[in-house]
């Protein structure tokens, strides 16, 4: 086994090099330099997966990764390399055991809005319903934009030693790109257009959660992600055509992976860092209040109510009642998930959210 070797200049000659003709003799000093040779990972039933590579030293994922170069995990580093500057270097700040599997799953389940949605199945809807759909698409597209911006803000700050997470997040932001796109496409294809931008309370909270990736994960994947996934499920139940159904089904699947990573990471963070559980609880108190403020905005509520009721006529009755059931589903899942993580949301849980717990409970 060889230790770190000193950096060498790219070319070792005093005279100017003619890059098109020079034929320097090889020095081959790199030959034989490895921490572990003889690795032979075989493909399994699902091919050669990222997680399969975690054998021997290649699978040793240290709690702290101080190397700030792009030295791949398990390769022999050079000494004296100026740092690239990775801010997130603690495993507990980003890790989830499921990242490698989620990465491969995301690739296997890829879809393309252009061709995997039966656009021809979309037929004209009553004006109010079309406008309500377009309004919801506008806000969902903006949510997806926040997913894109939040993930890409953090991804490049993550140390190379945790490549599984960096790679997994590439699938998340790519999923979000597709969501942004598919909601926009739906809004522009059936006689409508985009509606009014969202109120932005929760968007702001996610984008301003800069205390660490874990905080962003809580707001982006658990709070907003779970909310969006619940909303998509209700939209799927009220889809007007095969195209909408395909859109929502695909997005729900993508969101399920995001949620898996999110929950998995929060579990890891809470179980590997002192006080993290208390911090999560505190962040929940802050976040829930912001969510309550956002839910007071009538736009999304009324647009969903129109969709759920099939028009304006019954929107305030059946529509709002269905909307409240949806929020009930969301709040229960939110609380259950936190409970599973060991975070009991009892202190300062907003009565506005608590009021939904009994709505639509089965």
């Amino acid at each position, binding site marked *: 086994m060889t230790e770190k*070797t000193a950096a060498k200049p*790219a070319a070792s000659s005093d005279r100017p090099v003619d*890059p*098109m*003709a020079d034929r*320097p003799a*090889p020095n081959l000093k*790199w030959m034989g330099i*490895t*921490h572990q*040779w*003889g*690795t032979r*990972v075989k*493909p399994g039933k699902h*091919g*050669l*997966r*990222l997680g399969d590579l975690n054998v021997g030293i*290649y699978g040793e994922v240290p709690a702290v990764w101080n190397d700030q*170069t*792009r*030295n*791949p995990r*398990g*390769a*022999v580093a*050079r000494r004296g390399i100026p740092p*690239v500057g990775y801010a997130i270097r603690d495993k507990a700040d980003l890790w989830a055991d499921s990242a490698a599997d989620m990465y491969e799953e995301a*690739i*296997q389940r890829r879809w393309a809005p*252009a*061709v995997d949605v039966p656009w021809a199945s979309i037929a004209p809807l009553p004006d*109010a319903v079309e406008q309500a759909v*377009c309004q919801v698409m*506008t806000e969902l597209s*903006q949510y997806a*934009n926040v997913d*894109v911006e939040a993930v*890409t803000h953090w991804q490049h700050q993550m140390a190379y030693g945790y490549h599984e997470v*960096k*790679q997994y997040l*590439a699938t998340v932001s*790519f999923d979000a790109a597709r969501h*942004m*796109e598919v909601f*926009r496409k739906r809004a*522009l*294809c059936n*006689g409508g*257009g985009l*509606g*009014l*931008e969202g109120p*932005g309370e929760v968007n*702001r909270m996610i*984008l301003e959660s800069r205390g660490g990736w874990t905080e962003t994960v809580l707001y982006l994947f658990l709070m907003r992600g779970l909310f969006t996934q619940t909303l998509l499920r209700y939209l799927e139940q009220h889809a007007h055509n095969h195209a909408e159904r395909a859109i929502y089904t695909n997005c729900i699947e993508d969101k399920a992976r995001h949620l898996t990573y999110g929950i998995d990471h929060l579990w890891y963070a809470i179980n590997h860092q002192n006080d993290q559980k208390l911090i999560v609880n505190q962040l929940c108190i802050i976040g829930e209040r912001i969510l309550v403020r956002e839910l007071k905005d009538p736009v999304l509520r009324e647009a969903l109510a129109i969709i759920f009721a099939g028009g304006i006529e019954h929107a305030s*009755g*059946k529509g709002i*009642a269905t909307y409240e059931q949806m929020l009930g589903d969301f709040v229960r899942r939110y609380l259950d998930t936190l409970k599973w993580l060991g975070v009991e949301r009892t202190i300062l849980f907003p009565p506005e959210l608590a009021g939904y717990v009994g709505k639509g409970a089965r």
Partner: protein
Amino acid sequence: MSEARVWPAEADLDLGWMKQRGEWGMKATPSKQGLTLADIQIGSYGDPVDRSDNQTGRPRGAAARPNSYRIGGYAVVNKSEIWLENASFLYEEALQRQWSSATDVPWHTIKPLRDDIEQAQCQLATFLTEVEFVAGDVPARWISNTTPDYFEPRQCLLAQVMDESRHMDVFRKRALANGGGLMLTSGGTAGVVGSIDLARDFTEMSSRLHISGEGAVLTIFRMGELMAYNDAEKAIYRLCAQDEARHVAFGVMHMRYMHETAPERHEEIQCYLDEAERQILAGSQNPAGNQTDASEALAILLGGGKDKYDDGLNKLLAIRKRQVQEYIKRVRSTGFGARFDNGRSQLTEMLNQAAA
């Protein structure tokens, strides 16, 4: 349960939002390739402004709320800084041509190789694992700094981050699949002035990343047949080349747009190209560049063994020449080609000498 539900009493609805909306009456229709991004460039939705004041992250064309928070903090707000004409096409193509390194590479075709060849393969794979995600880290950062009004280029960059993630892993997989392992890191992607990482202007970054850096790698991947020892390696290079071709096209098309729309920046861009050209040959991020561990490994692979290093070097010099020729062609197509005729670039002279 078929009992009729009793709904709560009708609440008052506001519905004021129904009067606030973007342009209405849009009926985008699918084309031969489905409903593509190009198909939804209709009405005002297809026409991004030259300078964006959207700091709230609203979807382009949606009605603005006057009380929205300015949460975007976007740095790229001028169209010429990031735009290109065919972004929609490149993005849709990226979506359609995604592949899986787990299942689309015939890993079972890899059989034990001579030790010097396996070592060379592993050294090259180590290098590529190291450098591939430069093109993931850096575009990611620019995406979050770019207004969503220019979402089409952003979508391409998001696809690129995904592609690079796969490249990073396919070479790690190769290094660990055939009795070898990872070898010595190059350190060539360090954070030094003039590196892809540190550029503070998008076009400066793109000239280094897309045009010179990935352009050089594309040439190598396209000649993958010459250095592959089995169908798995051939598939890896072929699939990666497909992706890289899109990334390079992004850079070329963006630089062309910049050339056409921002004449005041021409001289500045020429300076970036001066730097880019020095870096192509320096080899810190080009395995066919001047002598490095990666270029030695490449020469062994091209020649067919350590004992045929000279043959390999001949092929490597041919690849290097081709890299330069292709680079010149690309830069000419952006409109910045005068540098090859007026003596500013050394590359034409080098090619002429090599030919003589």
